[in-house]
């Protein structure tokens, strides 16, 4: 009998996660979702444990979603905002993490503008770490909730096609989805202006690239619009926002090219009428608010997987 690979200690990206473990994680998210529908939306599974949400970059939905997820599982939550911390006095990330660990924090949820920061926290804390977004590199729980939302719609990801349209270059969500969705049996089509579409991603299994949005959405079961991350652009990527919207906006006209019943996703926050039209964002195909709702269940499942049980 082949020994099953070791259980991943962290969720930094999906490199250590087998398709089986990822499927189990999404299966358990179903149960967590049921918990959220009960009169008492809380279970004692993580009672006695402390989760630290360490956000070195602005976030509303991801931080709130993680904090609620931890509290729904009865964990204590300590929230650490970089702006109000001793980092401003010159303390290093390593020292900050070691101090928090000395307070007996059991797990970290880390968001940072620098790629690899979550790895650093994992090394110096010795505790399970969940990457809640590091630079342009990865945002694994967002990809998981995207996958979960598509699976909820179709029952399975196997054989499904997800078109991701927009600013792929600056999107950690796109990078995590490119890593995750093919592992679960789905194909990914990445689409955007050539300046925002890193050619190296075409080499990944299950991934194709195109600059033609109509070609991208044709046959897609889900279309994900990406936020145009102007704050990360130093210029020269786009001729104009108007031109971008004209060609790459996910709107009714573009969605007519997609599969009948194809759903629309957006990782948020949205620039309405730029990368997505308001009528599509609020329309019957939209699963954007369901993504937000699913985020809590998926993050409960991630915390459960990393904090419960032993090797």
């Amino acid at each position, binding site marked *: 009998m082949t020994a099953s690979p070791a259980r991943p200690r962290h969720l930094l990206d999906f490199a250590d996660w087998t398709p089986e473990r990822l499927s189990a994680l999404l299966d358990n998210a179903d149960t967590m979702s049921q918990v959220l529908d009960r009169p008492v939306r809380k279970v004692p599974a993580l009672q006695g444990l402390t989760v630290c949400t360490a956000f070195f970059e602005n976030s509303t939905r991801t931080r709130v979603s993680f904090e609620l997820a931890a509290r729904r599982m009865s964990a204590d939550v300590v929230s650490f905002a970089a702006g109000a911390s001793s980092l401003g006095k010159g303390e290093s990330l390593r020292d900050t993490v070691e101090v928090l660990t000395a307070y007996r924090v059991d797990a970290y949820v880390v968001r940072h503008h620098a790629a690899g920061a979550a790895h650093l926290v994992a090394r110096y804390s010795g505790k399970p770490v969940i990457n809640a977004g590091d630079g342009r590199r990865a945002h694994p729980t967002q990809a998981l909730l995207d996958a979960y939302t598509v699976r909820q719609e179709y029952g399975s990801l196997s054989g499904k096609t997800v078109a991701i349209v927009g600013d792929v270059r600056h999107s950690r969500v796109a990078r995590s989805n490119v890593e995750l969705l093919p592992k679960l049996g789905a194909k990914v089509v990445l689409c955007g202006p050539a300046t925002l579409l890193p050619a190296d991603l075409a080499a990944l299994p299950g991934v194709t690239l195109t600059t033609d949005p109509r070609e991208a959405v044709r046959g897609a079961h889900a279309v994900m619009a990406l936020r145009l991350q102007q704050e990360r652009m130093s210029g020269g990527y786009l001729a104009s926002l108007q031109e971008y919207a004209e060609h790459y906006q996910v709107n009714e006209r573009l969605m007519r090219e997609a599969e009948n019943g194809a759903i629309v996703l957006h990782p948020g926050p949205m620039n309405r009428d730029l990368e997505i039209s308001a009528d599509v964002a609020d329309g019957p195909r939209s699963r954007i608010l369901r993504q937000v709702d699913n985020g809590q269940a998926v993050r409960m499942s991630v915390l459960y997987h990393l904090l419960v049980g032993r*090797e």
Partner: protein
Amino acid sequence: MTPKATILTADEVRRALTRIAHEIIERNKGAEQLALIGIHTRGIPLAARLAHKLGELEGVAVPTGMLDITLYRDDLSEVAHQPIIRETQVPFDLARRRVVLVDDVLFTGRTVRAALDALIDLGRPESIQLAVLVDRGHRELPIRADYVGKNLPTARTEVVKVKLAETDGVDLVELHDLETLQ
């Protein structure tokens, strides 16, 4: 895996459940307001069978549900790997119901404690009773069953294996030595 002893045959399982059904009716003066909730895994078919018998005896359709207690266990840090979380389904209002929790084996009482917590989070039943096919003793908590198919004094080194047609293809209760199972 030869068992040390057969505790209940298929006929004896059937008779034990019939007797429990009668006791439930007698204690509750009928089957109105009752609900049966089986604890994963083998409590679920046992609850379904009891509901069927109550229906035959009283002409009342007793609602049934299923309860997974994984998220309520107090020993999760001692469990190797992640336990699989299964479905909890209680598709009726628990308020003013007399709920009978159903499980196959009553041992330390920790599963039942977790089930009580889980159930109370789902609603506020009028009362909760406990029915088990086998009570093997060794309680670690002050919990006792209201309905018992078979009281079976066991050693800690023994294992009671309940097999049911729905899950194992046959109705049988066996006693094994722990070391022969490992």
